């Protein structure tokens, strides 16, 4: 059991976008009934069959590290968070489609996570300016996920989708997936769960390199 390979994936984003619900959905195959604030970091594990059905099928443990907090936290909190960013294999950036600021903050989140290795003291030196170059040479695969699509009015959906398409392109991110789940009404989940899960797992499997 413990001999299976492990993959460490960070789940980053502003508070309230739905990271804990997303992680719970991926790992427990259920919707989180009472989401509460994540203090520090909460981890969950998913057993994933990579390249299922092929001769190279291999089972991995995917560790999803759901780091709580906001980009505007005190630098002491950021230094403490930095301890979780070691040896990361992939990053999932989550933003709320109904809240523009959470999409704008994704730049700062990814800078915080990616700059960890280059700054030994763990204290952030950048002021959050976005630099396309650093993403170009970044080896760690990124995935951008937008949540709460169901709460957006139909008329505005198109412009929101275009904006997020540009966002993912800026990051050189591999894919965008827009989830229909994460409404608060649990009764509606069962129908929407089924098509989403395999889509997500394939994208998560996509993150596994070498």
């Amino acid at each position, binding site marked *: 059991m413990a001999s*299976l390979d492990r993959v460490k994936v960070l789940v980053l984003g502003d508070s*309230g976008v739905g990271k804990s619900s997303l992680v719970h959905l991926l790992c427990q195959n259920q919707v989180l009934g009472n989401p509460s604030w994540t203090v*520090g*970091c909460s*981890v969950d*594990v998913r057993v994933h069959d990579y390249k299922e059905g092929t001769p190279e099928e291999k089972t991995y*443990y995917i560790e999803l590290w759901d780091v709580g907090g906001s980009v505007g936290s005190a630098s002491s909190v950021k230094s403490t968070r930095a301890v979780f960013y070691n040896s990361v294999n992939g990053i999932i950036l989550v933003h709320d489609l*109904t809240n523009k*600021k959470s999409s704008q903050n994704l730049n700062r989140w990814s800078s915080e996570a990616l700059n960890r290795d280059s700054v030994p003291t763990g204290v952030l030196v950048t002021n959050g300016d976005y630099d396309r170059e650093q993403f170009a040479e970044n080896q760690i695969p990124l995935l951008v996920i937008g949540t709460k699509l169901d709460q957006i009015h139909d008329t505005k959906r198109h412009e929101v989708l275009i904006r997020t398409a540009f966002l993912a392109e800026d990051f050189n991110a591999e894919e965008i997936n827009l989830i229909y789940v994460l409404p608060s009404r649990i009764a509606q989940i069962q129908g929407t769960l089924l098509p989403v899960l395999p889509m997500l797992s394939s994208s998560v499997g996509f993150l596994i390199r070498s």
Partner: protein
Amino acid sequence: MSFLIDSSIMITSQVLFFGFGWLFFMHQLFKDYEVRQYVVQVIFSVTFAFSCTMFELIIFEILGVLNSSSRYFHWKMNLCIILLILVFMVPFYIGYFIVSNIRLLHKQRLLFSCLLWLTFMYFFWKLGDPFPILSPKHGILSIEQLISRVGVIGVTLVALLSGFGAVNCPYTYMSYFLRNVTDIDILALERRLLQTMDMIISKKKRMAMTRRTMFQKGEIHNKPSGFWGMIKSVTTSAPGSENLTLIQQEVDALEELSRQLFLETADLYATKERIEYSKTFKGKYFNFLGYFFSIYCVWKIFMATINIVFDRVGKTDPVTRGIEITVNYLGIQFDVKFWSQHISFILVGIIIVTSIRGLLITLTKFFYAISSSKSSNVIVLLLAQIMGMYFVSSVLLIRMSMPLEYRTIITEVLGELQFNFYHRWFDVIFLVSALSSILFLYLAHKQAPEKHMTP
């Protein structure tokens, strides 16, 4: 004619204050959120604007700017508007946004928010009973009724905040209280944190694997539903699921531990930064200020105790008393009227500016700590309410710091309030707040180093 000029000056300054409140809201408070309900921003800025106008009128009173009658008129108007906002508008909108968040009551939002507002008004009115704040000759719907109650709440807030602030300020400024934190301590805690995370992960891996094998063997994966299902689950439970609940409990305990460790590590980092800051020039300056403030704080507590024990309320303000002392004892002669005006202007100005700035900073910190994307509207409105009440009561209390000739306008406008009661009440709450802050900080300080001693 002069009335028109005065009014236009007042309105311009109000617009300026409104703009400042708007900018503060956008750039400081709602930095990380998106403003979806502009009503909230407008209410906050309006409350801020009218509160600042009151302070502006006090300054104008001291400096003798503007016509006396137009000043009086604007005082009355401003007071009416701000009372309307604090008692009718803001509570109603708070109720409205609270009800909007609750899904069940969504359809009849207006009805329920009116009900909430009526409950608020009932308790607000009842607040006046235990306090001797009114003489019986006032009618039911007079300004004095409203302002006396707003004054009680506001003075309590002012006293609580200044009591805590008076104690906390030297505690944070002085480096004497800083615990000694080394890099080794931080690394040790971080290692513990990562070890705990690894333990959580390995347990969760076991759980995931167990669930997977159970699922593949076709055992229970859906919750037993219905009456018979519940009976069945009591008598027969697969050994796998028993194992799972046991491991789940261990995981819950470990997760709680990891949260504690995270918070402690953040605390250590913050202390380390403060130690480094205290070695800089600015840090040393603040350290010195801290000693000065601690003496001031002790003196204030002493004075509050004396006031309560000997049941006296100060009759003269510090400015006049200071001038008396210099004239009578030190024999320095100077133009009393001229200097009393300027000194009281400076003193009152400093008090106003520091209290506004202090309150805004405290509100911002408070807002960051407790708000989330769902409750941000409600919290901002609560903060606007607190801010309005705070400023109204500051006007009440500031009356004490001004010489007699400037107090008249406040006394005239606010009516026949029992000002002495408010000062006594302030002293009591200040004392209680300062002493409990000392106790609280002492306990927190004692408890912290012991945590790090345990290996």
